[in-house]
């Protein structure tokens, strides 16, 4: 800015300035020129962005959503006190996790005995209605977290338990036995603790301090029930 003011004031400068050569053509008054239009370049960029999501390929749309989901998975696996899960909530991740878990946990349709494991619908209902109940409980106790943010956090924190389910199914391929059971018990306990730590890292701050335990206890019960379903899974 200082150079622009100097160049009309010093027309007799011997050294040519190819960088500011065009400036002499502009009529700038001797006073400080504070006038003109200021365009915000960001707005045009956003318009470009919006129209480009309509025209982009399906592949890039899906990859963008998958990357967002994957980024949140990383936040769950390495829980730090960050706001990413809360700010850009989405329910794709919880849906993928819940469907995967329910598909793996459901009992075989050929095995129609009355007292078997849960059906697909039972797991689905437990996960979603459990999450809704915990969210309502948290809001009724006076927490300042929005409904879908809380659902998002609770759903994403099922990821360690889904990993535990995968490991348990692999371990069960080796055949039953006490060692088998000990390994599964250890894996499920570790993943249960991981889920609790991850969800508490995100949810605990939204409650007033004298009610934090009241809001965290239902989360504990929720993941305990899911861990129990994983641990008692017996393939027929």
């Amino acid at each position, binding site marked *: 800015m200082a150079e622009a003011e100097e160049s009309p004031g010093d027309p007799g400068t011997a050294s040519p300035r190819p960088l500011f050569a065009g400036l002499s053509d502009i009529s700038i008054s001797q006073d400080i020129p504070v006038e003109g239009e200021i365009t915000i370049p960001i707005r045009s960029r956003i318009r470009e962005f919006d129209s480009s999501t309509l025209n982009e390929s399906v592949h890039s749309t899906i990859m963008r959503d998958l990357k967002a989901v994957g980024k949140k998975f990383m936040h769950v696996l390495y829980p730090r006190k960050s706001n990413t899960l809360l700010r850009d909530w989405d329910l794709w991740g919880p849906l993928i996790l819940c469907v995967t878990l329910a598909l793996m946990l459901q009992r075989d349709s050929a095995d129609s*005995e*009355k*007292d*078997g*494991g*849960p059906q697909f619908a*039972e797991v689905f209902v437990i996960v979603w209605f459990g999450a809704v109940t915990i969210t309502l*409980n948290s*809001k*009724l*106790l*006076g927490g300042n977290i929005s409904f879908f943010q809380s659902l998002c956090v609770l759903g994403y924190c099922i990821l360690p338990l889904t990993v535990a389910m995968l490991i348990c199914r692999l371990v069960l391929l080796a055949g039953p036995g006490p060692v088998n059971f000990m390994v599964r018990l250890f894996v499920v306990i570790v993943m249960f603790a991981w889920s609790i730590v991850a969800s508490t890292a995100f949810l605990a701050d939204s409650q007033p301090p*004298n*009610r*934090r*335990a*009241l809001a965290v*206890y*239902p989360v504990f*019960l929720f993941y*305990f*029930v899911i861990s*129990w*379903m994983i641990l*008692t*899974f*017996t393939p027929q």
Partner: protein
Amino acid sequence: MAAADELTFHEFEEATNLLAETPDAATTSRSDQPTSQGHVAVAVGSGDSYGAEDEVEEESDKAALLQEKQQQQQQPGFWTFSYYQSFFDVDTSQVLDRIKGSLLPRPGHNFVRHYLRNRPDLYGPFWICATLAFVLAVTGNLTLVLAQRRDPSIHYSPQFHKVTVAGISIYCYAWLVPLALWGFLRWRKGVRERVGPYTFLETVCVYGYSLFVFIPMVVLWLIPVPWLQWLFGALALGLSAAGLVFTLWPVVREDTRLVAAALLSTVVLLHALLATGCKLYFFQSLPPEHVAPPHQAASLPTNIPLSPTLPRSMAPS
């Protein structure tokens, strides 16, 4: 003796004046409450009917004052969120306090008046029922696991339908029985002049918190010794029913003896039915011949004993 009585009577008046001036103080200042409760307990112990009658009078005065204040505060309609938020207006320490009060019922301490203090909450009943339902299903399944360890002929299955049965039965008990009780007490309201009935939420609260003692009882039922299980069951049932009876006694006392006796015995009987039903349905004692499916039973000789220490399976049949 007369000087001691006058002294305790003055204590009651001070407490009533305090409550009349600042009705909210009853819910927040709990530090000085234990001392006055201690004096109340002494008065009831020394002169039984006189002290108890005074306590009932003071309780009815306090209740009337607190209910007036509560009616002034019941402005939000039932369609607003803040209406339901008023039922969850409890802190962690308050919930723990109420749980402790239900675990240790004392004759002079009415659960509703001394712990709820006209601020019933729905958090306790709801989550205690949820915990009890899941603990019942989980421990029932665990006993099957442990039984299978001892006797491999028992067929293990996750028995997930028991979760549904447990949930429905516990929630129905904890909400329908207080509804019936509340309705009955309101119907008999005309007979009693002085002590008003409890509100529906207070009745639900009393029942919900009284179910808490069943949670450790169910966990202790994992120990597979039958007489110990019945002992724990009787203990827990006694504690829980005592809490209910002590809470209901001031309300039904003015009624006719027949109605009071019938009501209290019905309450205790229903509670006992719940405990017995849970024991019999979720913790069935399993004779191995009845449980094993036919293809497994055919492969095992019938003289394998339950106790694994006897090596009779090695003996030729």
